[in-house]
């Protein structure tokens, strides 16, 4: 009978191993030219931020009234100078540090908290799900910009408070996505089969749910990085985030605003940086989503 017949040999035959999941994703991603260009730009921006002191030709803080609003192409100031006569190129390079930090950190924090909340709500279901999701909906009632400004204002100006308020802004959408993918996965037959084999909730979530929900949530979260950067810039612009004279693209855009008629090209430069960065993150996350689809 079965019990005897199925005694296993303790040896495991050597097997042909398929390409792992992430290796497959990397292979498919590497064949997507748009995603690779976006990734290259992101890497370049990160390197720029890390090695800013070596790359920047000048001091990003020290200005000179003599150099105010020098146009692009001025010798020694390839990208001109800002309204206080600070070297634009150096400020843009240094600005990548805070801008990227303010773009990525709140999203990562919200990814961790929102995923946990959403996966819990989605897996448990029922009244607990309803309670969590309706609470989340309350935050949805406010436009994200307004919410970020209100929270930041309430917490008080400053970098940390800006990060906290941005994190709170991103938790609801991530929770919602996490809840919906988890609800889908929870109803798949393989989860039913796992329940039927007597596995407990925690094991099922760890083995069968996480692997299948984290990547779609992550892809969604990466698409929020650009939003986060823009919101962070907005907070700085309103004086709620980074404070002058720190270089940060959003804040630079704000302070150069007054010079837009005098030196429009220089004034637009921080905006161009924000645009390039956010579109790179968006294109990369699109590519990632496609590459993660196993059946392509």
């Amino acid at each position, binding site marked *: 009978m079965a019990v005897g*017949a*199925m005694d296993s040999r303790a040896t*495991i035959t050597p097997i042909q191993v*398929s390409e792992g999941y992430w290796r497959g994703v990397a292979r498919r991603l590497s064949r997507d030219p748009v995603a690779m260009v976006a990734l290259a730009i992101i890497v370049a921006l990160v390197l720029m931020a890390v090695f800013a002191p070596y790359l920047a030709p000048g001091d990003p803080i020290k200005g000179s009234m003599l150099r105010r609003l020098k146009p692009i192409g001025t010798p020694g100031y390839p990208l001109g100078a800002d309204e206080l006569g600070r070297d634009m190129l150096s400020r843009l390079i240094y600005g990548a540090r805070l801008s990227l930090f303010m773009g990525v950190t709140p999203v990562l924090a919200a990814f961790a908290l929102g995923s946990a909340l959403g996966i819990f709500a989605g897996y448990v279901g029922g009244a607990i799900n309803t309670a969590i999701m309706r609470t989340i909906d309350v935050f949805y009632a406010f436009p994200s910009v307004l919410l970020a400004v209100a929270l930041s204002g309430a917490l008080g100006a400053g970098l940390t408070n800006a990060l906290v308020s941005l994190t709170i802004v991103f938790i609801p959408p991530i929770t919602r996505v996490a809840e919906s993918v988890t609800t889908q996965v929870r109803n798949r037959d393989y989860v039913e089969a*796992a329940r*039927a084999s007597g596995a407990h909730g925690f094991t099922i979530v760890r083995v069968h749910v996480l692997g299948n929900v984290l990547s779609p949530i992550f892809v969604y979260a990466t698409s929020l990085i650009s939003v986060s950067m823009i919101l962070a810039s907005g907070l700085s612009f309103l004086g709620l985030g980074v404070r002058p004279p720190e270089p940060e693209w959003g804040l630079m855009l704000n302070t150069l605003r007054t010079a837009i008629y005098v030196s429009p090209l220089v004034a637009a430069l921080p905006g161009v940086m924000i645009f390039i960065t956010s579109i790179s993150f968006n294109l990369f996350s699109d590519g990632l989503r496609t590459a993660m689809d196993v059946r392509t």
Partner: protein
Amino acid sequence: MKDVPHDPRDRGGPRQPLLSVNRLIKHFPVNKGLLGRSKTVVRAVDGVDFDLLKGETLGIVGESGCGKSTTARLLMHLIPPDHGEIVFDGESVGHDLPLPDYRRQVQMVFQDSYASLNPRLTIEDSIAFAPRVHGVPRREALGRAHDLLARVGLEPSRFAGRYPHELSGGQRQRINIARALALEPRLVILDEAVSALDKSVEAQVLNLLLDLKEAFGLTYIFISHDLNVVRFMADRVMVMYLGKVAEIGSAQQVFAQPSHPYSAALLASMPAMDPDARTETAPLYGDPPNPINPPSGCRFHTRCGSVASVCSQVEPALEDAASGQRVACLMRQPGSGHPAAMPALEVA
């Protein structure tokens, strides 16, 4: 009664049913309107009882909405029943027999071979998951997975390390079967397990199921809409209609001489295999009614060719019929008031 090899887990002996289901009921609420909570329910399973003997294959047939898949999920305790008792080898599930112990002995194979495998796990990890949950060390669980792969006809060295999307539907269904067997269950519920497969592959999987049943002394519940396949696989057949059992009996009997008019109509609806004896009239008209609001009395009376006035008033119970089946039809119940029924027998 088949000759079943002795299983040390067998408690009640070969003649005690492996599974006894008593008055199983499951109604799903239907939310309507803004505030929901209306009283409308889908009567998916509405009082089902049957016995499953050790070593037999019970086929469950019926059309969409008849409750066959809900019955399978209730038997697996994937959804809690509203009412009813499941007795496994003499022990009431959830009372005498704790649910985890029951689940080790009952496993299920689903219709959709792709949806029932975790796309992120390799084949060996999928099969080894259940034993690992039950505390088998990883190495041993993987060894068992490789043995099972070989038993379902997939060479372990070629398949163990692969992912579900790299395999064909037939191969995936073999893996689902291997996964179901990993806990060494006594009962396997096959819910439309071959329905999505191509015919030439279906035959291979049916043969495999027969081989495994013999090798492991399994008992099957075989749910399918394909009557040909059920006739081939099943020892006994249960015909369901709108959440109720219409008829249950030996496969031979039910297929040769159906006692319930619905079973007869279902059989007559099978396409003829003889070009010179094509079906000329459809046995039934229209679709099965909605289980949200099933007809009163006998649920089949709205489509039955032998309907009498009593049929819309009296709900027939499942009773032993003369032919050896158990049938829920007033025509087979003496004294029911149906013109085709025999008069009531005098109690001697």
